[in-house]
Each structure stands twice: as C-alpha cells, then as structure tokens.
C-alpha cells in the first residue's frame, strides 16, 4: 500500500490562539493518556503532528496565526480521513473549534470534508520505509521478537537446520500465520533503471534546448547570491531558545523537526525553489526509495511545503537519533540537496551556484537550522521504539522466511538476526 502525506493548514480564530495552544500542549505532553485524543485508535497513521504558526508579518503583509496538521498515512486519503475523524471525532472538534470555518454539524463526514478542503499540496515528500503499513511494521517487529526467543542465547547447527527450526516453531503459533502468506513489496528497485534512462534523455534535452535559459538563470542566481553573501549575518546559537527544544527531544528512538523559514523575495527564487523541490520529489520516488537518502538512513518521513502564497517554506521531518546527528548527516551527506532548497530562503549561509557551500558551513548551518526551528505542540509516532534499519531488516527477515534459499542466502538471512 502506498504511504502518503497529508498537510492541512487552517486559520486560527485570533481570540482563540492561546486556548488552542494550551489544549495542544496538554495533548502533546501526554500522548499516551491525554483526555482529548486517543492516538492508539488511529489505524492508518505512522506519524502525526499539530503545529501552531504564530501570527507574523512577512514583507509588510500580516499573516494570521495558523494551525498545521501533518500526517503520514497508509493511503488512500478518504479512508484515512475517516479513520482520523471517526476514531477521535470529539477530540478533533475540540481542536478545530479554535479555527475558522469549522463545520457546525459534528459528524465524521463534515469534518473529513473540512480537512480535505484545507489540505495543501506537498511538493517534496520522502519515505524511508516505502510500502510498509503501520500494521505490517508492528507485526514484523513481533516476528523479530519471537525469532529472538526461539534462538535464545546460543543456537548451534547448520544454517539450514536453524532456519527450518525457526520456521517449524513459528508455524506452531497461529498468530504468525500471516508471516507465511505471500508478500509482494511495493515495486521499487526496477524504477532505477528506467529513471537513469529517462534522466539521460532529459539531460540531453536540457543541454540542447534549455541551455540559453539556463545560462540566463545562472547569471541571475549568481547575482542574487553575491548580494546575499554581502548581507549575510551568521546565526549564533541562542542557548535559551535551544533549551526549549531540548526539553522535548530524545524521549523516543525518533525525533521530529518542524522548521519554518521565509522564502527570499522575487520570482527567480520562488521558481528555483519549486523546481528543486520537484527534482527532489522525483529522486525520492524513483531513486532514493529504499530507506537510504544518499547515505542518510535515518529519515522515516520528511516533507517540504510552501505556504502563505509562496512567502514561507515549512519542513517537517521524523528521524532516528538525535538532532545533532541528523543535522550532521545533512551536512556530511546531503549538503547539495539541502543547499539547493534552503539557499532560496532567508538567513541561509552563503552559497555558490545554488548548491555549493551553504550547508557545508557546518556550524553556521546548524545555528541557522535551530534559529528557524519552531515548537511542535503535538507529535505522535505509531512505533516509537523502531528505527528505520530495524523496520527494513524485519521486512527482509519476513521475506526470507518464505523464500527458497541457497546455503549462502540462508547464512545471510541468519546474519540479520
């Protein structure tokens, strides 16, 4: 099944911003036992967050306070909305009563429609656990746990013997029947060949047809970069601001990041940004679809969305490990892509040719990232103790369980334990 992203942006009634914040904080501080939302009732949700964007002024235009809902879910959309609204109708109304235009009639259908109408497109979306449903992730984890129990402290014998012992033990337990059903993973690998081929043709086309346009664009970007570089003031980490984020970080295997930044003015920057996001989205779909984004193996889901009529850029990420390690991976492995995106936003360290330098200014980049980070009021993970590597390994174990294998493959399968 295809995992998708939903982003819903609604305006908060000005007089209700404070009470909404209070409500969301109450939920966020006690995801398990709060009295508003029962997260365990959700069936389709991998990750979910609510974030308040405070009222602000961007380039002389007042932007009212907004509430953003972001979910990563097992598609399609309508059953997901029904799951969201149906399982927690009271709670969702309690939240959305703080927002403009919420329907009068308290029922699942109306609320679903309201969320649907207020959703915005996601120009760039990345998934680390491609094709796995929430249910599957849970089940495959329990399979791993059970196999560990079968193996115990030490198991001797030939690889094939050990494997058949695992299989026969599992077959005795009806709750693992599902593991022996045929499993068809979402087609991912083969897209790479097609993609490489199309990529080659596209590059050729660009070289011939778009060269003059590209040249003009390049001159314009270089001009803008020069100006930006002169105006650049390096961010410095502010201990008291950061302390606020640290308070909420590192309670789960995963952490989250919500990052909000103003896009540089002018159509060149906005359109460049849109193009880069399009390209990243394409790469994420066709190339980086095995839980590995150019060496980064820690992102469950991430997305960029453009809001406020092209004035601001929002980034959401659900990742394994610490903020420091995540941002470090950005710098060490993905600096080009990130610089391509964020060089079009305000305060980013100086860049060259759109994608060079920028995030490679490691310390300045991290300070900037913290400066533009905003508080996430509510954040839920359906599997807070599983890393991407665990999830992907569990699926491989499950696949290997029913496949015929050579002695070498059996050995490799056993290594996954």
């Amino acid at each position, binding site marked *: 099944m295809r995992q998708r992203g939903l982003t819903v942006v609604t305006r908060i009634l000005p007089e209700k911003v404070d009470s909404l914040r209070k409500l969301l904080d109450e939920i966020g501080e006690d995801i398990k036992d709060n009295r508003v939302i029962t997260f365990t009732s959700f069936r389709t949700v991998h990750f979910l967050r609510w974030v308040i964007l405070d009222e602000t002024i961007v380039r002389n235009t007042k932007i009212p306070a907004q509430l953003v809902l972001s979910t990563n879910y097992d598609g399609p959309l309508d059953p997901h909305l029904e799951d969201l609204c149906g399982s927690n109708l009271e709670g969702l109304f309690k939240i959305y009563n703080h927002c403009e235009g919420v329907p009068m009639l308290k029922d699942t259908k109306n609320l679903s429609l309201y969320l649907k109408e207020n959703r915005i497109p996601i120009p760039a979306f990345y998934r680390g656990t491609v094709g796995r449903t929430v249910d599957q992730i849970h089940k495959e984890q329990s399979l791993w746990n059970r196999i560990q129990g079968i193996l115990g*402290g030490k198991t001797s014998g030939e690889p094939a013997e050990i494997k058949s012992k695992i299989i026969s033990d599992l077959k005795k337990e009806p709750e693992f029947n599902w593991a022996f059903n045929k499993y068809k993973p979402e087609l991912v690998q083969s897209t790479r060949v097609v993609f490489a081929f199309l990529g080659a043709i596209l590059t050729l086309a660009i070289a011939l047809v778009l060269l003059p346009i590209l040249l003009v664009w390049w001159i314009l970007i270089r001009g803008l970069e020069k100006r930006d570089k002169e105006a650049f003031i*390096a961010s410095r980490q502010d201990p008291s601001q950061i302390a606020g984020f*640290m308070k909420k970080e590192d*309670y789960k295997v995963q952490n989250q990041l919500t990052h909000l930044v103003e896009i540089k003015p002018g159509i060149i920057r906005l359109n460049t940004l849109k193009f880069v996001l399009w390209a990243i989205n394409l790469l994420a779909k066709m190339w980086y679809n095995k839980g590995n984004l150019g*060496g980064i193996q820690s992102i469950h889901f991430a997305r960029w969305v453009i809001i406020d009529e092209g004035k601001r850029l929002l980034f959401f990420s659900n990742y394994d490990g610490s903020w*420091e*390690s995540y941002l470090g991976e950005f710098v060490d492995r993905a600096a080009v892509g990130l610089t391509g995106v964020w060089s079009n936003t305000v305060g980013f360290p100086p860049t060259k040719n759109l994608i060079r330098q920028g995030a490679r*200014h490691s310390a300045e980049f991290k300070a900037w990232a913290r400066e533009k980070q905003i508080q996430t009021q509510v954040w839920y993970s359906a599997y807070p103790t599983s890393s991407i*590597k665990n999830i992907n390994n569990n699926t491989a174990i499950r696949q290997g369980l029913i496949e015929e294998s050579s002695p070498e493959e059996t050995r490799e399968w056993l*290594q996954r334990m």
Partner: protein
Amino acid sequence: MVTKNVGMELQDIQGILIRSHKELSHAKYLLGHIQKPSKAKSWLSNTLPKITNGLSKPEDFRFQIAFTHPGIQKLWTKGMYGFGVEFEQGMATDFRSRVLGDLDESAPKNWIWGGPNKPSVDLLLMVFAINKEGLNQKCEEIKLNWSESGIDHLKSLDAPPNPKGKEHFGFADGISQPTMPGLSKADIAENTVAQGEFILGYKNGYDQLPLTPLIKKEYDPQNKLPDAKEEGFRDFGKNGSYMVFRQLEQNVEGFWNQVKEGTKQIQNDKSDCIYTASKMVGRWPNGKPMTQNPENESPFNPKEDYFLYLENDDKSGDKCPLGSHVRRTNPRDVLPDNKAEAAIKISNLHRILRRGRIYGPPLHESFEAEKIKDTADDGQSRGLHFICFNSNIARQFEFIQHMWCNNTKFDGLYNDPDPVLGIKDYRDRSKVHDFTIQANPVRQKIHGLSRHVQVKGGAYFFMPGIRALKFLTQE
C-alpha cells in the same frame, strides 16, 4: 582525509593538548570555586608563568588550567559571544542527563562534584609531578594560595601512576588517539585529524574555522587578543579547547560477575570469561584488536595500532561485534554504508583527544584481567577520570556518547547499548538490554545487561590559550 599542515602556535597552546605528560606519572586535579574574582585574578596572574605550554617540557612539575562557564563569567563580566551552547549550559542539565545517560545512581544530584545545589565548580587546576611527595607538597602550597586569593578549594582528585596503561576492568586503555598534522609525530592519513577538531583557531574537518568565543574590540584596547575573522571582534578562543571531565566509577566485581553470567548464557565451548569480556570491549586485555585476532590474545604493539574493520573482512561483526565498546566509540571504516573512504571521513568528524587517568588502586595488584576477574570487591572506590578535548562538544564528545555508545539502535542493532558502559536506554526505561555477538551460523546473545560504570562528577571546561589567560587576569 587531506588536512593542511599549518604550524600551530605551540607557545600559546596549553601543553596537555599536545602531549599527555605521561612521564610525570603522578597527578592531582584541583577544583576551585571563585569567591573573590579580583583576588583570583591576581592569583592567576602569578600562576601564569607556571602554566605549561606546548613547547616547554618542565621535568619536575607541569600545570594546566581550565574554567567552566560560570568561572569565566566571574573573571570576565563584559560579555563574550559564541561559546558552544553545551559549554554555556553545562553538563548537568536534564537534556544532557538523558543523552549522556546520567540517570538513576549517575544523576547529577548524586554527584560528588559538579552537580546542582553545590557551589559551582569554576576552575580546574591540573598538577603533574614525578613523585608523590612533591605533588602533595605542591598542592598544599596551591591550596594555601587559593585560600588567600578568594578561591575555595572544593576537591582534589588523585590520579596515581598507571605504568601498565590499564583501566580497572583489566583492559589496556588510551590506545588509538588521533594525530594532528604539523606535530613532530606523523601518522597515516586515516588517523590524521584536522587541528581544528581539537584546538580553536585552526581549520576543522570541514576545512573551516570552528566557532570561537569573541570579545568586542573596544574591550581589548591593548591588543592582547588576536583579531577574529568577524569584524569588530577579538578572538578569545584562539588556541583554546573544550575539555570534558567526567569521574567514572567502576564496579569491577559487578562487571566480571555480569561477564560470568553472560558466558553461561552463550555456553561457548572455547569461551572463558576473558573471551566474552574481550568481545564486549572489542579488544583483548592487552589491547590486541578482536578484529585482527578473534581467536586468542596474541602479542600487541600499541604503536602499530591503526586498523580497519573491512580490511580484516569483519563487516558482519563476526570477529569484533558491531556493538562492542571500541567499534562504537570509533567505527573507523564501517559506518554507515560500509564504503570505507566515506565512512572514515565521517568517523573522523567525531574524534576526541583523550587525556584521562585512572584513580584508586587496582582490585588486583597485577592489573591482569585473568586475576582481577576472580577477586572479590574490597570496598575501595576506583575508576577513570575521563578527560577529553574537542572543539565542538555536541558534535564530538556528546555525539559519541549519545549516538554511538548509548544508542541501542547503533549500526542496525535493536536493543544493545555499549556493553561495557551498560547504560540503560532512557527512551524506554522498562527495557532489559542485550549484547549481541555476531557469529556463524547465527548470533549469540547475552540478555540482561546491567551498569557497572557510574558517573560521580563532571563538568564542561574551557582550556584557554596562554594569551587568553593573560587577558583574563587584567582588572
């Protein structure tokens, strides 16, 4: 990694950043609390000529000095910008307790020094000497001077000689340090790490200058400090370094009992306890890397230590377990894609200069693991004064401790923290942890790790360059 060979200002760098003072085998670390800053300044001013720099090698005594953030604030009140957030906040915050694993018995509220609700540790004076009598006498003099200079003596931490170079569980320690280019000792490229990873004012692993604390130019009319690259500022940090100090107490009997219990669980034919413990450490007691010889403890020369995992055909961890202590603390070429060159480059962005020394007597005088393992606890406290230097505490020391040692998901593992430190995952307090020993045909697993290394005190210090020290002494 290609690193430019830039000469360092050795005369302005405190000596311990360049060498470990091993030949002065007796040491004491004095912790002080500043009561009267102006008097403390004149003490510092008098002491300054004795502070050992990177060029001099006095044969009788050597002194190094470092300050915590509260300490620097007492001596300099006009504002300093750009210290690392970790240094400013200090080691004993709730966040750091989580990520460093300073919980339960190791929580800062239980610390002997550096914890909350105690007078702040402001400064640290490290004294090195060739014999015990000289050391004690010198330290008594210092304490007397302190009491006359408005500095409260909080504690003296002893670091006795350790001729065998072992830690208390019985394993060789302090091997495999990174080498900075431009010093007299040359090393292979894989182990040569940019100067700016350890000392401010030089290019770091990103080929950039590390962030450094700054002072407004107007406060330094006599040009005591060098210019910063930022317009209008002077560089207080040049030739300084961040120093991490943690007092780690080791329960030796507890550790070996756990090893014995674990050995039973994996019922290994060849396995005795030494084998199990060596799997946990990733080295044999004499320091020989498991990955080079997984079968037995063969002779080992620490000077020829540099090794890689892939060249020993140990990607799988069948020789040196993925979760072993040394593989976590420096994964060398195996993270995270198993592409050696890229992995080494990234590992080297998380290196530290270690300058720790043990404290307390060995549980068995021979310091041999074979003897220690069967010796009953004698009630004495012993452990390691863990000391390391880096230019970015968050990216180096904290990263290693948090993402590599304490992270139960390290390198694709599920439920395995560092088996030597045995720190419980703060993210799931109910979990009982494992140590997985990758093997053919299938892994062995020790279930139920416990913790035998407790934190008794700690702080983040900044060790300024000599010029910066002098700057602090002015009224």
